[in-house]
């Protein structure tokens, strides 16, 4: 079954998240006219989130009949490596570059260098500030945080009984974390939601486990744990162990297979999804369209929505998650 | 403190400040003197109000047992340590030695007991370490090379400036250490057992040089445990005991017995014991052994029970290497090693030990001891697989401590603190710990490589007696030594090595200095 048409939002003027947006149905090309060589760069390929994006780009590249080479820098602290890898990719003869950026600003120079060679650069998932980008296929992580925040704020509007939230945005300093943090804090502002603790930490499950445990010790009366998907997954067994499953609810601010399973089992309350797979697919399609001189949307992103225990039945995971048993694909011929 | 004018002066012991009234001697004013020097190490009072003076142009011997505080005294003179109490005067001026650097500025130069060489650097780089010649801030490598060669030539040592120190033998390193101390602006030279691993040839060269600088007015402080050296070069002798000043004597008139009595507080009848040799069955046999690096070439020897076999030869002659190869720590190219009739050529060191061979290395710091561990652990290390150190596969720590205590008594360890890290003992006492290692297990063939390096006369006598006891109890002993009297007095058979080959085997009555030395030097042409 094909994934399209898919409901997306398009920003106009592009590259400004504050622009007015219109809802459209995204329809990609059928086939590329020639096997273009695409280069895709990710911050890392160490978790299920980026695996989903990988699934999206690789499937779409196969569908369109283009070649793809994927590089990953190994983590959010490896900006310099990402720069080098993209340079290498271009040197290896890429026709277009798709970047899941480590830094919002740190790749701008590189983007203009590449653009000077008339190679299109598409910004996927994370966002970059360069005005010279050819296209963007993303939603802002700030909005993901905001979506999670809104979900809470709606459940606990101002005036209702205050609820205490432990907030675990992820590793300190990473661009997506800071964006998510800003979005979330902004969205719960003015509601009955009180963020009693903000704990940064690596997205390793062991690190998040420790933070969750310590926060539960510090705040025995906590109502919500909101954080990264890893936090949510880590929190489930800890809450079960402490018999707090009914007292403390868990939310994630993005979607992974573990979160999916958690919601289905009733262990995690809800999580917004940014349709990761679709973002990847659209980025590939945009790249091919630009290369072939076809019409393309400069700035699109799937509409965000929250998947909760009520709506999970109707949720199609193939828009967000790589299927079970999917192995990372680094090369599509 | 005005070091500037001091530095400007000549290296001779010219008249110095007139305020120098308390000089114990009447002749020239002292070059260097200490008054009431004490040094408190944590837990040990190493020096207790010691007065000492050095006159220009004399060789002043420091004499005393191991741990008497000789090295500590000279380390204060050289600016390495600061005294807890008392003062040091240089040419009558009180100096507050802040550092070695400052001492060197004054022309005080020292050869320390433990080498102060950087193994990864070349001879030349080591010679000028801390005193490199620069021109406009840039190292003058040409001048450095030339000066290094000059110093080496002057000393007549077989060293090459470009060699890396870590590839040198202990003796060669000792030469580098000595060469390092000889500098142009010398006023005081301090030598702490410089000849401990040298052979007579180098020693003689060193003494000739000392005579030369004496004539130039340099004062020399010389520490040694060898009586014949005291006779040869000493002018005055100061005896220390337990950190206290005992006496200062004239070297020409002082007798051996008196010195030893002053030093130890008792009389040592004779240094070398008489040994009853009863050669029995053959214990160790080495057949035509050659090492890959040709340090030993086609050498054969045999050792019987109840005898002491000496291995003699120049530095680098391969006398150590052959036994190291036999013990399995150095590789063997060809040849066969037989222990008690059994071929042990291919076995591991541990297996050779188990079959009764034991080798005590010459360099305790480098390969003998684990400096930061206690005496107890060092002593028991080779024998942790047997009683009293082990019981039922586990360590018997009570038995271990008891046995280590006994060994400390037997070796007369000073101070007798077996739990203390070896590092904190004086050089001679470290040597005792090293020797104690071979008493922890049954051994048929003992190999001692320079066993008395840096050991005082009293202890030396004890070690010789100990070796005699081993021999008379029926063990086979191999004694590798560059100290010729040791070989002459203790052995009943000697193999002389030259360039990795056995040049001669000398028996019983034939073991005389003349006979041995004749084989030491080149005879290849023949």
């Amino acid at each position, binding site marked *: 079954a094909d994934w399209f048409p898919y409901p997306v939002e398009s920003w106009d003027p592009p590259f400004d998240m504050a622009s007015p947006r219109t809802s459209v149905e995204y329809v990609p090309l059928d086939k590329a006219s020639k096997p273009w060589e695409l280069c895709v760069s990710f911050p890392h390929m160490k978790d299920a989130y980026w695996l989903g994006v990988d699934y999206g780009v690789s499937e779409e590249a196969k569908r369109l009949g283009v070649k793809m080479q994927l590089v990953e820098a190994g983590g959010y602290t490896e900006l310099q490596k990402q720069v080098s890898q993209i340079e290498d990719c271009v040197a290896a003869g890429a026709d277009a570059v798709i970047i899941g950026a480590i830094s919002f600003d740190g790749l701008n120079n590189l983007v203009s260098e590449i653009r000077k060679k008339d190679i299109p650069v598409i910004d996927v998932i994370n966002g970059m500030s360069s005005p010279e980008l050819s296209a963007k296929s993303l939603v802002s992580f700030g909005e993901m945080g905001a979506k999670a925040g809104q979900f809470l704020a709606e459940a606990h509007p101002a005036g209702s009984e205050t609820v205490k939230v432990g907030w675990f945005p992820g590793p300190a300093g990473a661009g997506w974390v800071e964006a998510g943090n800003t979005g979330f804090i902004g969205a719960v502002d003015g509601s009955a939601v009180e963020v009693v603790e903000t704990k940064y930490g690596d997205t390793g499950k062991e690190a998040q486990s420790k933070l969750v445990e310590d926060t539960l010790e510090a705040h025995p009366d906590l109502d919500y744990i909101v954080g990264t998907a890893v936090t949510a997954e880590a929190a489930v067994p800890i809450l079960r162990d402490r018999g707090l499953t009914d007292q403390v609810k868990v939310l994630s601010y993005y979607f992974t297979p573990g979160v999916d399973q958690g919601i289905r089992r009733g262990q995690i309350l809800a999580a917004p999804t940014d349709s990761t797979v679709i973002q990847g697919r659209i980025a590939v399609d945009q790249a091919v369209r630009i290369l072939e001189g076809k019409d393309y949307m400069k700035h699109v992103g799937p509409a965000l929505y929250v998947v909760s225990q009520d709506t999970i039945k109707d949720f199609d995971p193939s828009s967000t998650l790589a299927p079970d048993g999917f192995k990372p694909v680094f090369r599509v011929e | 403190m005005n070091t500037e004018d001091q530095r400007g002066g000549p290296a001779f012991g010219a008249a110095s400040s007139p305020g120098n009234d308390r000089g114990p001697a009447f002749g020239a004013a002292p070059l260097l003197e200490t008054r009431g020097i004490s040094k408190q190490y944590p837990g040990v009072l190493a020096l207790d109000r010691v007065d000492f003076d050095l006159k220009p142009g004399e060789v002043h011997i420091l004499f005393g047992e191991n741990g008497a505080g000789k090295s500590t005294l000279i380390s204060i003179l050289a600016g390495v340590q600061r005294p807890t109490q008392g003062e040091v005067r240089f040419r009558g001026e009180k100096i507050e030695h802040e550092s070695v650097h400052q001492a060197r500025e004054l022309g005080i130069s020292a050869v320390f007991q433990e080498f102060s060489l950087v193994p990864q650097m070349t001879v030349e780089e080591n010679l000028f370490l801390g005193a490199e010649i620069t021109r406009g801030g840039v190292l003058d490598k040409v001048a450095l090379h030339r000066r290094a060669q000059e110093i080496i030539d002057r000393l007549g040592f077989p060293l090459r400036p470009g060699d890396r120190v870590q590839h040198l033998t202990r003796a060669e390193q000792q030469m580098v250490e000595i060469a390092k101390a000889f500098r142009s602006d010398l006023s005081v030279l301090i030598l702490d057992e410089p000849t401990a691993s040298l052979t007579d040839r180098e020693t003689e060269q060193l003494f000739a040089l000392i005579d030369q600088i004496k004539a130039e007015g340099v004062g020399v402080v010389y520490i040694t445990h060898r009586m014949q050296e005291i006779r040869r070069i000493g002018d005055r002798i100061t005896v220390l005991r337990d950190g206290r000043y005992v006496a200062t004597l004239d070297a020409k008139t002082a007798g051996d017995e008196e010195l030893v009595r002053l030093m130890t507080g008792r009389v040592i009848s004779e240094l070398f014991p008489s040994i009853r040799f009863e050669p029995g069955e053959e214990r160790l046999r080495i057949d035509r052994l050659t090492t890959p690096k040709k340090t030993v070439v086609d050498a054969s020897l045999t050792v019987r029970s109840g005898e002491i076999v000496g291995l003699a030869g120049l530095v680098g002659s391969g006398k150590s290497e052959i036994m190291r190869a036999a013990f399995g720590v150095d590789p063997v190219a060809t040849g066969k090693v037989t222990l008690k009739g059994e071929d042990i050529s291919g076995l591991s060191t541990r297996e050779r030990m188990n079959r009764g061979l034991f080798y005590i290395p010459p360099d305790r710091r480098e390969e003998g001891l684990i400096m*930061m561990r206690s005496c107890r652990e060092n002593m028991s290390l080779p024998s942790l697989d047997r009683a009293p150190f082990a019981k039922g596969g586990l360590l018997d720590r009570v038995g271990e401590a008891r046995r280590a205590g006994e060994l400390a008594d037997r070796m007369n360890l000073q101070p007798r603190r077996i739990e203390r890290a070896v590092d904190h003992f004086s050089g001679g006492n470290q040597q005792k710990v090293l020797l104690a290692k071979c008493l922890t297990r049954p051994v048929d063939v003992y190999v001692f490589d320079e066993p008395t390096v840096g050991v005082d006369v009293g202890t030396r006598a004890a070690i010789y007696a100990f070796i005699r006891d081993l021999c008379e109890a029926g063990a086979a002993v191999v004694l590798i030594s560059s100290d010729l009297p040791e070989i002459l007095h203790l052995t009943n058979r000697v193999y002389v090595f030259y360039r990795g080959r056995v040049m001669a085997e000398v028996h019983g009555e034939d073991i005389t200095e003349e006979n041995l030395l004749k084989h030491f030097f080149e005879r290849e042409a023949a």
Partner: protein
Amino acid sequence: MASPETGTKADISAPKRDLAYWMKFLFIRLGVLPFLLVIAIVIFTMMSDNFLSARNLTNVVRQSVYLMIVSLGQMFALLTGGFDLSVGTILAITSVVGASVMAAVYATMPDAVVLAIAIGALAGIAAGVAVGVCNGIGVAVFGVSPFIMTLGMSSVGFGIALFLTGGVPVYGMPVEFGEFFGFGKLFGVPVPIYIAALLALVTFFFVNWTRQGRYFYAVGGNEKAARLSGINTRMTLFITYVLTALLAGIAGMLLTARLDTGEANIGASMPLESIAACVIAGVSLRGGVGRVENVVLGALFIVLVQNGMNLARIESYLQMVVLGALLILAVIADQIRLRYLAGSQD
């Protein structure tokens, strides 16, 4: 290491035994860590109401279990004068392999829970030990410096762990595994604590009461002297890295039980943290010096401080500053102790 006489002798020579004297005596005898622990506990108790509860302290000890076990292993590497930078990767690879095998066995035989757990845990630990065997061969046989050998292996191992999973957690282990080894309690004390205590005891015994234990110190203290004393130094080095990996592997399986999934993304901070735990416990990076009991305290101290700061609501950025500064201070305090120690040494 100080002999028992020290105390006695000091007692005689110092008749006035006031508090300061006893403090100094204990400081010299026990090291700086017990004091730091006490100070930390006092401070955090004042800063947070919830800190000094039995539950939180149990929590701290349980959290520290993983670091503690890894640090015990790391100690072997440090004792022989090396490092093991691959302990993090060993954790990851153990977790991934162990969880996969356990899930697979469980899937084919849903009734044989114990068997599945046993086979899975063994497989995981075996995979970790395999990394250690490579390290051991590299260091002991080929003479590669432990730094590069274990750094290289950590890269290789992590690549393999990611290749096996693609970074996705491995699910499907029997719940009993997590329930017992991760969250289980016996007499109110979490199971992982028993296991860590057992391992610490065994290690203590091994290091102090067996021949091989002594050899680690000897090889680290002076390899040549050890060889001349008949010790098979290569074998000792090999055993070192295998043991380090074994302990890291056990920690990996325990962590897997706790996390309930097999994860490739764990342990990244373990190498440096475990070395830090050892060093503040007085283990020398030059080899030959170190004590098991102190290493246990070292690991506990690091985790306790992290926990305390979390409970005292110190913000994340500041926590980094405090933790770094504390590490340094702990070592400076230990330096001071060593000076005293030299002074009072028997």
